[in-house]
């Protein structure tokens, strides 16, 4: 699938929708006139604070009174041009930029009357602008694609969860309430649902379930995901037909081609999950602590414990596998946590009694949330204790020389249980390590969104023999693929197996670069001898060095069915999140 095609599909739908909305605004121009409900005479007061800014004069001059009408005409013209160009598949960053600026001006003209469709058009057009300016193959284009998809999923999820928490939505009366109004209602639908409880409840729950579970598109394959997009389109079509909210239909539909491309042509899922658990969740917990609504010291301690324990959990056992964001992110999170703890502690006494009474009305919901947080914290404590146990060597380890030099190396997988080490359940790889190289900022990639293998710090890093011994076996012909592409036929990719001298143990070093191996079968090697370079061959998520030690068996299996031996480097048993500074 090619991003270019999906970009033009999105732009085509969005520009068509913006052309219609421009015409609608021109048709209803009276609302912006000096005698209109959103007159500039009043609107300009809302941006009064801008009067101190040097930008105030040009902005006010541009959008005041009837001049705004000229902008609506320009918006119509730009939309029509973009629609035509998207049909012809001609990229025009300037036109997209102009259209984006024109949409932005609406907020300056008046906040009122702007809805979710306006926000979605900003999200989609802003992201398309980034794609258009920086190129379809750029890392920024990838970020823009992720952003549209994340906002689309979030939009439905928030709406779904809020409805789920609302009693009137759960019992179906929300549908009745909406459809009996004159502004957004519909007489026929009201009659239908008023007389039939089943339809009322069914329609209400259909909306709740669709919105809440739309996020499943990131887990589904193409054929199933497309049904979700069809349902979403039909949902907005119903809203347009029965509620008159026509602007949502095409604006939301414009995000679907990009979202479809994203979930099936990029590794969105592998980015979304770590971002959610290792960035969004801790930030939300710390923000919750920051919020000065702790009524008592006990409440403050509870909030601090929930956030603090989760942070410790991700610091010890967490897997910060986020492109461009290294393990160092956790230190910033800890800093934010301490500042928030102090801030919220000093604000306890400032909470007014009236606020306490106000909050008691939602006691039931608060209890549910607090119960969930208690369970969540219990799970975090269990994970912390497992991670501590898993960070201890089982004994009988073999001391090796660290195989990489001149730099800091970060262990992504490693430890004495499957919480810290995803190899643990494979007997031969029980104590294996996955190692990446980090720079002085703790980042393991040179770019936020790596586009080539050289963007990973460890790629092409020289590999030195960790032991003195004999080469038993090598493989040097597997291709190095750009993530997320993997070679499942050859799990280890290019590798070297070394028999440690005077022992019955062997070391396996895997995922090496094609044709980089400098030793042959039967060669004698010394510890510290250059033997190859790190690559990205085999079944690997990104360039890294895989190393493990096994007891040599009669089957000659060094990878799966073998007895794994724990390894130490400078007498240290490395586990996930360990950083090894190699100074040689």
């Amino acid at each position, binding site marked *: 699938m090619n991003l270019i095609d999906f970009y033009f599909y999105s732009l085509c739908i969005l520009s068509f929708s913006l052309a219609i909305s421009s015409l609608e605004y021109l048709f209803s121009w009276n609302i912006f006139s000096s005698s209109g*409900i959103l007159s500039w005479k009043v609107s300009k007061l809302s941006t009064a604070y801008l009067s101190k800014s040097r930008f105030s004069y040009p902005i006010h001059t541009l959008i005041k009174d009837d001049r705004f009408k000229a902008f609506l005409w320009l918006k119509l013209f730009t939309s029509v041009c973009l629609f035509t160009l998207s049909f012809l598949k001609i990229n025009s960053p300037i036109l997209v930029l102009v259209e984006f600026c024109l949409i932005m001006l609406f907020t300056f003209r008046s906040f*009122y*009357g702007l809805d979710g469709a306006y926000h979605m058009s900003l999200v989609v057009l802003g992201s398309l602008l980034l794609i258009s300016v920086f190129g379809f193959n750029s890392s*920024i284009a990838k970020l*823009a694609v992720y952003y549209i998809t994340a906002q689309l999923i979030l939009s439905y999820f928030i709406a779904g969860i809020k*409805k789920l928490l609302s009693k009137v939505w759960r019992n179906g009366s929300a549908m009745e309430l909406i459809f009996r109004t004159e502004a*957004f209602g519909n007489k026929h639908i009201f009659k239908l649902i008023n007389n039939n409880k089943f339809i009322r409840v069914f329609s209400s729950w259909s909306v709740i379930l669709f919105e809440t579970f739309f996020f499943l598109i990131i887990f589904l394959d193409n054929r199933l995901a497309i049904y979700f997009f069809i349902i979403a389109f039909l949902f907005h079509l119903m809203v347009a037909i029965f509620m008159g909210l026509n602007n949502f239909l095409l604006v939301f539909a414009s995000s679907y081609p990009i979202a479809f491309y994203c979930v099936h042509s990029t590794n969105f899922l592998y980015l979304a999950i770590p971002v959610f658990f290792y960035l969004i969740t801790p930030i939300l917990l710390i923000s919750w602590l920051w919020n000065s609504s702790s009524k008592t010291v006990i409440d403050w301690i509870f909030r601090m414990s929930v956030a603090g324990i989760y942070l410790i959990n991700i610091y010890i056992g967490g897997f910060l596998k986020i492109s461009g964001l290294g393990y160092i992110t956790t230190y910033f999170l800890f800093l934010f946590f301490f500042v928030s703890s102090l801030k919220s502690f000093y604000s306890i006494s400032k909470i007014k009694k009236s606020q306490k009474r106000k909050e008691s009305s939602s006691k039931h919901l608060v209890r549910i949330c607090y119960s969930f947080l208690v369970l969540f914290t219990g799970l975090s404590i269990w994970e912390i204790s497992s991670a501590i146990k898993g960070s201890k060597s089982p004994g009988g380890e073999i001391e090796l020389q660290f195989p990489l030099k001149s730099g800091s190396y970060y262990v992504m997988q490693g430890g004495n249980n499957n919480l810290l080490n995803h190899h643990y359940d494979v007997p031969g790889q029980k104590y294996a390590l996955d190692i990446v190289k980090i720079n002085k900022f703790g980042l393991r990639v040179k770019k936020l*969104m790596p586009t080539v293998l050289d963007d990973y710090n460890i790629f092409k890093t020289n590999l030195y023999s960790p032991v003195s011994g004999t080469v038993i076996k090598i493989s040097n012909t597997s291709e190095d693929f750009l993530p997320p592409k993997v070679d499942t036929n050859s799990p280890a990719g290019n590798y070297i197996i070394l028999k440690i001298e005077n022992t019955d143990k062997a070391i396996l070093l895997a995922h090496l670069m094609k044709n980089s191996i400098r030793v042959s079968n039967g060669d004698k090697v010394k510890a510290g001898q250059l033997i190859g370079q790190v690559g990205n061959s085999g079944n690997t998520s990104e360039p890294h060095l895989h190393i493990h030690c096994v007891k040599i068996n009669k089957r000659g299996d060094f990878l799966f069915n073998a007895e794994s031996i724990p390894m130490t480097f400078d007498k240290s048993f490395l586990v996930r999140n360990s950083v090894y500074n190699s100074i040689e």
Partner: protein
Amino acid sequence: MKTTAEFIIGSLLFVLFLATILKELKFFGNFWDSFPVIAHYIPSWSFFAPNPYQVDYYVLYRNINQNEVHEWKQIYQYKKMRPSYSFFWNPHKLFLRAIVDVSIDLLKVASNEKDKKRICLSLPYLYLLNYVHHLSDSQMEKFQFIIMTKDTQSEPEVVFVSETHPIKL
């Protein structure tokens, strides 16, 4: 240079995404009120939840002379039925949304603010004041407006009464 741009744009998009979540969770209370323009660029994804739109808002006004008080007049008549093409073309919703948003915001201000002067200086009040002022009969001396709520099943209820204001030409 390209890497710096990538980090800046990536961080900006992440902050926007996070702000969208925080805005919905209302963790920072009135924090967003300090940045009205920026706050309106951050998406809001509530969509009729948790409380659906359940009553219609009617704005009525009347003109007042020394010894004469005129009848209340409605500034907008809801259409009995939307035309069949409204799923594609519905310009009337723009005025409707503006009136609804302004009315809801004014009621919010009125419920949070005890000082009448501050209510009268609030943005939604001024929007309605300006609009009703232009609708008022210039021969008259003063005007006043009210907001009523009603749904098709219940009696109308007056939820806001404005001050009386002079009509100035």
